[in-house]
């Protein structure tokens, strides 16, 4: 049971280049999320998914696209990278709990992205 894994761990891009970050979870969770973490800004939600084939915008979605073709995978795409997208990106997943007090999120190890 690997939990939440992210690929790649590090990446350096030039302005205008594109890339895709891959997140995979083996816990059969319905919900998946992409966050970015910047100094002084905390974790900010980019996009999220409540199930296979569904996606929704979070707090800072501009410049990013996502897809959830399979329940276990959630992809984050940057079509034309900008220096402002330099950040640490975290994927997370959680299960759908009817008893609200037991909801938790499990995070991946992060992807450090630098855009020059």
């Amino acid at each position, binding site marked *: 049971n690997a939990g939440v894994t992210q690929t790649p761990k590090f990446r350096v891009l030039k302005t205008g280049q594109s890339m895709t970050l891959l997140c995979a979870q083996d816990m059969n969770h319905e919900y998946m999320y992409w966050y970015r973490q910047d100094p002084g800004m905390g*974790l900010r939600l980019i996009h*999220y998914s409540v199930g296979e084939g569904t996606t929704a915008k979070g707090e800072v979605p501009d410049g990013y696209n996502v897809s959830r073709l399979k329940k276990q995978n959630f992809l984050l795409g940057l079509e034309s990278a900008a220096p402002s997208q330099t950040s640490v990106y975290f994927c997370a997943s959680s299960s759908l709990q009817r008893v609200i007090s037991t*909801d938790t*999120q499990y995070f991946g190890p992060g992807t450090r992205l630098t855009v020059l």
Partner: protein
Amino acid sequence: QKEVEQDPGPLSVPEGAIVSLNCTYSNSAFQYFMWYRQYSRKGPELLMYTYSSGNKEDGRFTAQVDKSSKYISLFIRDSQPSDSATYLCATQRPGGGNQFYFGTGTSLTVIP
């Protein structure tokens, strides 16, 4: 106004000290509160959660919610160097939907 506000620190304490980490939140409808611990260059991991108000204790850690003042706290007793990390408070969007709001995190260093 952000949903959750947190003093970023940094906070430095000697080993064995009692640590108090605090957050405030904006919406009285929030009922579910969490504390995450994040070691350097790692993803956050859930440390504790509480529902509604009151205290919850787990070993050396106590989470406290004061709904009247919209204040949440994490206390660490007998702090250890291994507690050195960034601590993030979080709450869940009312109505479920599994969306979470995070504080910016407080960096803690416990000096041996």
